[in-house]
């Protein structure tokens, strides 16, 4: 996914200004593709399920029931029950609920982290590109340095030595993922800086900040935001990996990575415990990736001079 960000070249962004809202055009184009619609439908269904089902279910995702351990999913084996369509885990907790609650956290962390990455990265990038000189120098070298440390090493290092909680996970992932956004935003800002209207505004006496926030940012940011959708999927996988390594959200809160990691030892006897969260995660990610890819294509099409 890294390449999707890198693919947004400096000249593409902002060099061709299309009248009307670019954002709306991109969305419209994307919406016309089948991939986007499939992805969107699946995503909305998952979202609704994870929002509603745990609230109306008679069970709880963290409630244990020693008498109902290792129940298989519907129609498999002999012990299945209607109440537990995806079966139960090693402590008799309902797998469907655990997956849906896991999905909540996964999505929440994915979206919030990308938002954080976006704000920090684009903020620094705009600053760097707009201010130039030593601002630019300092921010870009910091970006290079951080870009050169693989995000996962940074993340597991910090989480490995401090307590992993939801806010720290978001903070750590967000702070280690911003550099690519900074680069892209900077390129766009540099291009924007040279534009007629900016010079015009300067002549009128508008300050840097005013120009940046009121005029340049609304032009630069939306296209980047669309591509950021793909990053949500990447962060969700990351969160799962952290959980898998034992550095994610701590129990009893269910999370995909933790469920799969814990279920590893039951794989041979109770394969569904590790399988269903894997399938859930893969379906959610596919839906996000379908939407992201369609948005990206649409963006390229519009900037590519369609």
């Amino acid at each position: 996914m890294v390449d999707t960000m890198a693919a947004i070249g400096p000249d593409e962004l902002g060099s061709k200004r299309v009248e009307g809202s670019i954002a709306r055009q991109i969305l419209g184009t994307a919406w016309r593709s089948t991939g986007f619609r499939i992805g969107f439908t699946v995503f909305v269904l998952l979202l609704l399920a994870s929002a509603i089902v745990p609230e109306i279910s008679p069970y709880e995702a963290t409630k244990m029931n020693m008498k109902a351990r290792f129940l298989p999913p519907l129609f498999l084996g002999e012990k299945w029950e209607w109440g537990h369509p995806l079966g139960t885990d090693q402590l008799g907790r309902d797998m469907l609920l655990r997956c849906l609650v896991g999905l909540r956290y996964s999505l929440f962390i994915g979206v919030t982290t990308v938002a954080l990455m976006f704000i920090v990265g684009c903020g620094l990038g705009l600053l760097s590109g707009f201010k130039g000189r030593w601002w630019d120098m300092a921010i870009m070298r910091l970006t290079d340095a951080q870009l050169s440390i693989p995000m996962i090493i940074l993340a597991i290092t910090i989480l490995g030595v401090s307590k992993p909680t939801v806010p720290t996970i978001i903070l750590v992932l967000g702070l280690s993922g911003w550099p690519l956004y900074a680069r892209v935003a900077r390129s766009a800002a540099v291009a924007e800086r040279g534009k007629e209207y900016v010079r015009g505004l300067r002549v009128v006496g508008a300050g840097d900040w005013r120009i940046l926030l009121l005029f340049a940012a609304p032009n630069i940011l939306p296209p980047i935001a669309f591509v950021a959708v793909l990053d949500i999927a990447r962060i969700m996988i990351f969160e799962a990996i952290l959980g898998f390594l034992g550095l994610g959200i701590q129990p009893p809160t269910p999370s995909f990575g933790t469920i799969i990691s814990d279920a590893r030892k039951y794989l041979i006897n109770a394969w569904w415990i590790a399988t269903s969260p894997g399938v859930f995660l893969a379906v959610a990610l596919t839906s996000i990736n379908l939407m992201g890819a369609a948005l990206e294509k649409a963006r390229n099409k519009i900037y590519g001079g369609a």
Partner: protein
Amino acid sequence: MRERSSCKGKWQMISRRTLMQGTLAGAGAFGIGRLNPDFLFSSACAQEAKTLRFLAAEALTGNWDPTTHTNLGQLIAEGFMFGYLTRAPMRPENPTELIFELATSLESIDDYTLEAKLRPGVKFHDGTPFTAADVKATYEYGCQPDRPAQWYPGQVKVEVIDDLTCHIKTGDFGYPAALYYYLSSFLPIMSAKDVANKAALSAKPNGTGPFRFVQQKGDSTFMEANPDFYLGKSPIPAVEYRYVGDTTTRTLALLNGEADIIERLEQEQVDTIEKDDRFEINRAVSVENKYLFFRCSKPPFDDVRIRQAACHAIDRSVILDVLGVSGTYSKAHISPVKFGYTEVDNYPEFDPEKCQALLAEAGFPKGEGLPELTYYVSVGFYPKTKEYGEVITAMLQEQGFPVNLQVLELAAWGNLLYDKPGGGEGNMIDCGWCTGSPEPDLVLRTHFHSSSKRICGIVDPEIDAVLDKERNAGTVNERQDILQKETLPMIAQKAPALALFTSVFIHAYRKELEGMYIYPNGMMDANKATLG
């Protein structure tokens, strides 16, 4: 931490008869039906075919000085390489039997003197002959109060009578020498030369055991048969002790033929392996109890009522359900295979009403007002810790304890396990204690006496008094009586820790492995084993 070492218990012999039956039954399926997956790497395996490959659940410490650790993995490795005055096979039919190894007899001369006669003609791996001077060096070094392992009940003096006779004396320190009778099967004998040179002692193991150290390569420790072993060279030419932290990985390695014997299995793996007639399972009630330790030196668990309330909130039968084969019921702070075990009458049982009453009495009705309580458990080594950690957390939360469960990797957990000035980390921590001897003081004194208070940090004169009284008892019967009627009930009442259950150690091995002894603390005797 996980201490284990010699202990009483039954040693399990893999019987030749069951072995033969299994081999015959499985021969057809195994020989013909299985595709050989080794075609790409068979040459590497062929060379090592006769090495006994043991996958252990615990890594070694990197320091071969036996007095510096309480690591079961290392005790197992020491079992291969070191010699002991005696070994305690702890067979169920004769649990107190001692087999004489480096000693040929242990006689009590008076209350404070134990005479050991030593075996002639034994040599250390470096060629030095074994004499009474080595026993003196080992005992006097190991009993120093600054030795971290703290296996000794107190300081001791050893008087060398001649090369093969010595007197273990405790008179200067005021406790009976008889305590060393069972301990003799637990303390590995080091060479006097090494004890004088600490660097050599920690760098390389030098014992009198059936295998000698060859090299350390990554997580593997390689040992080869000692040709000068006093019982003759072992038929197994070499042993590889390899640390594989993950239970599933160990199981898969056994199933794939990449290991000969593996330890610390859980219910699910046992189910899988039992279905496969290429393997055997060995179960042994261990000397290890698993404990929920309270940090007693700081609030809120400095209040005995809060500790009791927490104990009454926990339904141990549910934990046993979760554990399956890996645990068995016990009702005292020591394992049933220890000297003096009895089901203690006033042991705290699941009782929500009592729990609520105690909480209210302590000023926290329904847990209101209690601070957030951090509960640490480790993953990877002990079976099902994370699972029952979640169960215990839920049970405590149900009674109003605001518990926050933290699951830690072994290394991180180990670093905050012990008590320190101001109280150990968090408020509760999960740990097992598997001292390798029938001697109960290896658990009780280590944890609950104010001179040691390893993990819980409790300082309580009443507990100290009953512990001292039990240690100083004149006869074995008197000691057992005090243990059962005073010491254990007192500890149960003060509840500095809750013993959750007794571990069952499970080993799985290839059927071809024959004649191997597994002690209830996980140590092994591969001296007479063969690997077909």
